């Protein structure tokens, strides 16, 4: 995380950690400079070294000079492991990336997820405006699978989407969730969010692969438990 503000970066990381119950990937912060707002390429280098991994590092940045500092850091330190500078929005991108990485995805997938992180918000706003959101693929026909009804008040919003993505991501299965005429990859919390499935919506869960049955059971359990939100006011 490269940010002009340490407070902003720390809070964003806390927000993202909530989605994965404190687990998830290493996140290092390079934020602030000379005691105030700003960025420092040498701090970015230090943070990169702390986060270094053969699996690679995804770098999220806030404003323009954060990008300058990150790029300068790469020029000066020339890391040997893969580093992706992400065009993702800082907060939304971080949350999406942390959830996806916690589910075990590789750098390319996590990067793509982060870059698509504005989609749920855009979809939600587009829906309110009566437009059709472009996001999860249209389901050509209803595939055979388990039909479930969402019982929790907010339906498949951010936390439930993250819970499904995390649980399914850990399994060896290709899992899809269909709802509202659209289809989402269940390992992508973003795609799940863009289904726009609210309370009472019917979802269909399909899975193939070695853990297919376990995956479906896992999703069913989460849905039937209302994602732990049934006692919430």
């Amino acid at each position: 995380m490269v940010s002009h503000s340490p407070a902003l970066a720390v809070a964003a990381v806390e927000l993202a950690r909530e989605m994965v119950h404190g687990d998830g990937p290493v996140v290092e912060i390079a934020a602030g400079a000379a005691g105030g707002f700003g960025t420092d390429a040498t701090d970015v280098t230090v943070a990169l070294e702390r986060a270094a991994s053969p699996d690679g590092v995804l770098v999220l940045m806030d404003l323009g000079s954060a990008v300058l500092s990150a790029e300068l850091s790469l020029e000066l330190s020339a890391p040997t492991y893969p580093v992706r500078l992400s065009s993702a929005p800082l907060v939304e991108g971080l949350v999406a990336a942390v959830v996806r990485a916690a589910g075990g995805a590789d750098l390319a997938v996590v990067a793509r997820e982060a870059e698509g992180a504005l989609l749920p918000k855009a979809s939600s706003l587009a829906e309110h405006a009566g437009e059709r959101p472009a996001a999860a693929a249209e389901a050509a026909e209803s595939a055979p699978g388990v039909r479930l009804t969402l019982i929790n008040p907010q339906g498949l919003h951010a936390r439930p989407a993250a819970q499904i993505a995390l649980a399914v991501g850990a399994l060896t299965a290709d899992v899809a969730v269909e709802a509202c005429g659209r289809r989402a990859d269940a390992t992508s919390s973003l795609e799940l969010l863009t289904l726009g499935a609210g309370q009472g919506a019917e979802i269909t869960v399909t899975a193939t692969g070695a853990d297919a049955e376990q995956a479906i059971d896992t999703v069913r359990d989460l849905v039937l438990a209302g994602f732990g939100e049934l006692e919430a006011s």
Partner: protein
Amino acid sequence: MGTLTVTDAVSVDGLVAWLSSFRDAVHEHGSYLTELDSAIGDADHGANLTRGMDAVMTAVVPPPDTPGELLKKVGMTLVTSVGGASGPLYGTFFLRGAAAAGDAPALDGSAMLAVLRAGLEGIVARGKAEAGDKTMYDALAPALDAFERSLAAGSDVGAAARAAAEAAAEGRDATEPLLALKGRASYLGERSVGHIDPGAASSALLLDALADSLDRA
């Protein structure tokens, strides 16, 4: 060819004099830079460069042995002490200049041009600015062209630096009517028109300081 003058090659001490002059200039014009940056930025350019150049002057006393080592030190110091975009931008300017200087003990006209050109290329690589984006590039690019033309016409480094400073000042002034396409100012859109770009202003001060320091050499 004229007679050898003291301004034919810039030594480490000459570069320190340049930096010292620039430091004095940002102190003197700090409020002006900040005022420009308040109009179309986050109002910290004066403070950033003052802090940066104070740190630089501390870092270069005693100076390293060669111009290359000095310029590298200047670049890294700016990177770590200037928190805004000027840190990586001016930092890269000096770091690239350092690479171009190599281990030469002093910089003659063409070496100085090479240093400045490498620095400008670094700024373009880092900030991706083009002519007319309303940035420091709009002062630096015409300045370097003037420097090069002056040298080609047979002038010494001091005279070339003076020509560069004049061109930088014109370039700075020419940013006033431009629409900002880079940096914080670009968020302002039309509101950026009618204000001189602070980065162009500080770049003009930088070239002015170069000319002043060579005049006094």
